[in-house]
Each structure stands twice: as structure tokens, then as C-alpha cells.
């Protein structure tokens, strides 16, 4: 399915229900620095299908968040796309003017952030923030807005939603604020929600509640979710498919059960062994030696080679490309021998 390049209107975009919702193709993004351009994302290819949960995992600085921001057309200052494309519902969106992108973002793709209290507007009440989305994006009347806001808050599990309408973000606990954030993300009835570490700042019992909520919403509404997370436990609970990133590239992508049962890339394997788990006895974990490379240092060949236990001299010669291996895609020179 190739994305068309023709100009489209939002109405056209809203029509149809293609199996592939978000398609990122060979995306390369650079940051312009004083010492020249630095490649932050290298040849990223990803798809999110309708109703699917795709998790992006990796250490900080590996490009997870930048991938999501680029998909939404929210490139940070100094970054630019030098190759590849982003399509939504089979229409290219990486070359759209800001006013079109702004509308797509609010209606078709919405976002949930890590710090809900910081992401909400501190001077507007919960009711008016959600209501704004409803009247702007769905053109509801004032009376409808109130009823729908209450319904949304109830749907995301806020108790006594009528009383919450007049609350301000600082009066909310982290868990309630994240529920409000999710209600806002749902208000426009988007087809894709991008969530960047939505439970990282929350306590574990509250995290369990929010994960349960996201699972429930996925089943009830069929909204696709692109979830950025570093906690493989969370990923195992919610993902349909997982893409593992390292130093600005995707090194492995697989359905969730395959990834955990049969990890192919040495980095994925190391990552799975590196965390102390709650269900294993004492000291049964192996830290990955060294640190993830900073994007400023350009590496020759495979970026994971310096920390890899299966490394061979030729690993540093060329960059491995993603190869299809059963249900997985893996970028490793030794993938054939290691399995």
C-alpha cells in the first residue's frame, strides 16, 4: 500500500478505515549542531495498524520519543527530516502545512504524556479543558459538552465526575490527573493515541489501574496505541507488537509473545536479562556493561557492538539492516548463527 502524495482535506482523511493507520518509512532525522548535522533517527520503518498496541522500547536517548514527535509533526527545534516519510491512513502527513497537521493532531492523533499535571493547563478547570476539545473538535453544544465530559470522565474511571469538573490540575493526584489526560485524549475520538511513558511517574498500584484502563479502552473503542516505555514488564502486559530501539535505529521488531519467548537481537536478550525481576530469586540478573552511545559520537558498523557479548570483528564494518526472520525483523550481522 503506497501512500499518495496528493493534497487532501481532513474530510478525505477521515474517510475509509485502512488496516495500516500510521506508516513510517525509512525515516531519518538530523539535528543541526555547531559541529554539523547529527543523525538522531536512522532509517526508521514502522507501522501501527488499526486497533493495535505498538510499544517502542529502549534506553533514554535511543530516539523513542523523537520518533513519536516526528510522527505527529512536532519536530523539536533544530531537527529536520532528511529522508523517508510519515503517512496516516494512507496519506502522507510529514509534508503538510502546520494548520493541517494541527487539525490532524487534535482529531485523528492525540497524545498522553508522562507528567500529567505538567501537561494539563494549570489555569483552566478539568471541565473546561475537556470541554474545549469537545466543542472544537466535535462541535458539540454547551449542554452536550457537559454531559459528554461527565461521560468521558466516568469512562476513564474518575469517581464523582460531576464534582471533578470544577477541579484544577494542581488539586488532582497523579493517578486522577493521568485519567483526565486520557479523557482529553479520547475526547476527539481519535484513531491513534501516542502515549509517552504514561505510567512512569505513577505509583505501582496506580500504574496497574491505568494499564487496566488502557486495555479496557482498547477493547471497547478499538483505538490504536503507540506506547513509548522503558519498562519491559509494562510492555509485556499491554503490547501487541514491540519495536526495540538502540542508538536511533530499530534493532528488532516482533509480536509481543515472540519477542519475549524468542528474542533474536543480542541487545533485546541483554535487556531482558538486565532487570531484576520480582518473580525470580536474588541476584538473578545480568547488567549490560557500558553505556548507550550518545548520538553525538558517530559509530562505525553496529552501534551495539562495543557492549555486545556475541560481537565479531566484522560487526564494526557495516551497519546491519533489518532482516525478516519468521514473525520478527532483526538487525544483527550474526542473527543467522546465533539461533
Amino acid at each position, binding site marked *: 500500500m503506497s501512500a499518495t502524495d496528493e493534497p487532501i482535506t481532513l474530510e478525505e482523511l477521515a474517510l475509509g478505515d485502512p488496516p495500516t493507520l500510521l506508516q513510517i518509512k525509512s525515516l531519518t532525522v538530523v539535528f543541526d549542531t555547531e559541529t554539523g548535522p547529527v543523525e538522531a533517527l536512522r532509517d526508521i520503518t514502522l507501522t501501527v495498524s488499526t486497533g493495535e498496541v505498538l510499544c517502542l522500547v529502549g534506553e533514554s536517548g535511543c530516539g523513542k520519543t523523537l520518533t513519536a514527535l516526528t510522527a505527529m509533526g512536532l519536530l523539536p527545534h533544530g531537527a529536520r527530516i532528511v529522508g523517508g516519510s510519515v503517512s496516516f491512513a494512507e496519506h502522507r502527513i510529514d509534508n503538510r502545512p502546520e494548520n493541517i497537521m494541527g487539525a490532524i493532531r487534535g482529531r485523528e492523533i492525540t497524545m498522553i504524556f508522562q507528567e500529567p499535571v505538567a501537561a494539563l493547563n494549570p489555569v483552566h478547570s478539568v471541565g473546561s479543558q475537556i470541554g474545549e476539545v469537545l466543542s472544537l473538535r466535535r462541535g458539540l453544544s454547551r449542554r452536550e459538552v457537559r454531559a459528554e465530559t461527565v461521560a468521558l470522565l466516568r469512562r476513564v474511571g474518575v469517581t464523582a465526575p460531576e464534582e471533578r469538573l470544577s477541579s484544577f490540575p494542581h488539586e488532582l493526584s497523579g493517578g486522577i490527573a493521568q485519567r483526565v489526560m486520557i479523557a482529553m485524549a479520547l475526547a476527539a475520538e481519535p484513531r491513534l493515541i501516542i502515549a509517552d511513558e504514561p505510567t512512569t511517574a505513577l505509583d505501582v498500584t496506580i500504574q*496497574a489501574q491505568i494499564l487496566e484502563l488502557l486495555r479496557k479502552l482498547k477493547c471497547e473503542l478499538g483505538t490504536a496505541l503507540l506506547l513509548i516505555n522503558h519498562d519491559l514488564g509494562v510492555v509485556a502486559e499491554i503490547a501487541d507488537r514491540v519495536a526495540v530501539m538502540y542508538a536511533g535505529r530499530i534493532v528488532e521488531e516482533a509480536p509481543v509473545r515472540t519477542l519475549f519467548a524468542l528474542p533474536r537481537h543480542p541487545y533485546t536478550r541483554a535487556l531482558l536479562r538486565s532487570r531484576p525481576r520480582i518473580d525470580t530469586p536474588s541476584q538473578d540478573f545480568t547488567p549490560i556493561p557500558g553505556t548507550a552511545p550518545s548520538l553525538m559520537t558517530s559509530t562505525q558498523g553496529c552501534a551495539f557492538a562495543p557492549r555486545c557479548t556475541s560481537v565479531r570483528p566484522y560487526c564494526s564494518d557495516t551497519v546491519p539492516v533489518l532482516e525478516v526472520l519468521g514473525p520478527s525483523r532483526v538487525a544483527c550481522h550474526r542473527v543467522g548463527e546465533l539461533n
Partner: protein
Amino acid sequence: MNQPLVEAKGLWRSYARPRKTLFGRRTRLTAVRDVTLTIGPGETLGLVGESGSGKSTVGRLILGLEAPDAGEVLFDGRSLEMDNRHAWREERRNKQLIFQDPLGALNPRHRVLDQVAEPLEVFGTGSMASRRDKARQMLRRVGLSDSVLERFPNALSGGQRQRIVIARALILRPRFLVCDEPISALDVSMQAQVVRLLAEVRDEFGLVMLFISHDLAVVRHIAHKVAVMYLGEIVETAPVEALFSSPAHPYTQALISAVPVPDPEADRIRILLDGEPPQRLDDLKGCPFHTRCPRRQTVCAERAPDPVIIDTDRVVSCHFPTLEQVA
């Protein structure tokens, strides 16, 4: 029986809350209520609980950084002398603290080697050359290369900074180390490295440790004994394997079941708690957990449960503890 190195008996601590309005009534928030715990020689106690449960306050009270409203802390059988500044200072060399944020704990304008040597200088130990030599050795021990010695903290990664903080905490050869969320600010792969390092130096230097963390998985891998806090109270204390294989308090059970396991095939029972911890602690009667407890009965809201010894080293504060295998 071995005398415990650290003993906290009936600690209470409350803080004044800011007034709601200009002439409003001043209220107090009880952060720690009636906390009793002991840490024996060579032992690591994991203190777990969610944010606001009072874990850090207990750490500060035990170190003597704050005075309790009631109760006392014994170190090596002797009471902490909060008023005698000289004695307090001498005592402090035996006790060190590692915080969550290594950058905040380090001086951005001092070079790495000088910062690690500084505690020796404060206590007037040895010549400058010997102090720097000791610091260099300790930095190597925590896994840092000599190339970082003359650098500033800003130029280093989070993992390297936390290693510097650990080196500085160990340089005086303390007997007791409090780690307050030592890995929360670090990247995933760094967390595992630092946990491994802390376990190594603990065994090597024979440290007694209080390991405060919200991360139960990490606590399982470093602690010998675990105390679970909820709303300022310790609700359960148990040896680490007993706690994780058969938690007795309903809060401990919910907490453990809420931690995600990196295995999509895992068949686990998830206990979902309703709502969030209540805010107004002082009005709370009965068991602190009764508002969210899946097993609550009428008595739970009326009377606070007394701590019950259910097995060797196992204490639980609950009217209806379970003793069967849950995990």
C-alpha cells in the same frame, strides 16, 4: 543473640501543613506513626511503599538528620545524641546516605577526585597525598576509570555520577549506609549495574544497609528483610523470600501483584486496588489501609490492628492476615 546495629523504637514525626486560607486553622500531617524496626549486623533492610508513605522520613530519622516527635533511635545500642554536636559529628562518620539524584548530591564546581577525598579532609585523616590516593582507589573500586578523576560532575553520565556518590559515601568506611531510591533517576541498564555494585560493596565492606525504594523487584534482589509502609505505618515485616512468596498483609499482596512481569505468558493474579491513598490522615480511624482494602470488615474502620508475630521475624498489622501461598 547478636545485638542489632540499628534500632528504631516507636518513632513518630509530623509536619505542619500550610494554612489553606490566611486565617485558616493550621493542621499537621503525620508522616511517620509508631515505626519500630531493627537492622542486625550484616543485614540489609528494604523499606518499600508508595510515594508519601513516609519511607524517606524514616531514613532521615534513623540517620539523625531530623529529630522524632516521639520515640528513639539506637545505634550500636546507644541512643542518638541529637543535642551534642560533637558526638553527633563523630557518629556521622559511621553512617552515610545515598540519594536519588546524584547531580544534586555533588558539587558542580569541584573535581571528582577532590569531592571523594573531601570527607577524609573534613575528619582530618592523613596527608593530602594519602587522601587523594585513597580516593583514587575507591573510585577504581566502584568501577570508574582514572580518566574521570580530574573532571567535573556535569561532564559525566548519571551512572558515573552515582558511582562517585557511592565512592564518597564509602571512603570513611562507614558501618551503616542508607540508600534512598538510589537508582530511580538512572537509565534502565545503569540501574542494574548500580544495584550489582551496591550488593558487592556491601558484602566487601560488611555494610549494614537500609535500602529505601518503591521498586519491589530491586528490593527482592538486594534486601534480606523487607518492611512495607503504608500511610506512615509499617504494615508488614518479613524475611525477603517469605514476603515475596507468601505476603500476609492485603496491601503487600496488592503491591506485589501490581508489579508487571516481563513475560506476556505469565499467569498471575492481579489484585486491583480501588482509588488512591486518602489525603486526610489525621481523621483516619482504624487500620490505615481499610479505605482501599479488598478484605475489610467493620472492625477495620473502628480499631487499628496490633502488630502480630506470625512466624520467625514475621510481623503483620492486620485483623485478617492470610498465611497461604499467594504468588
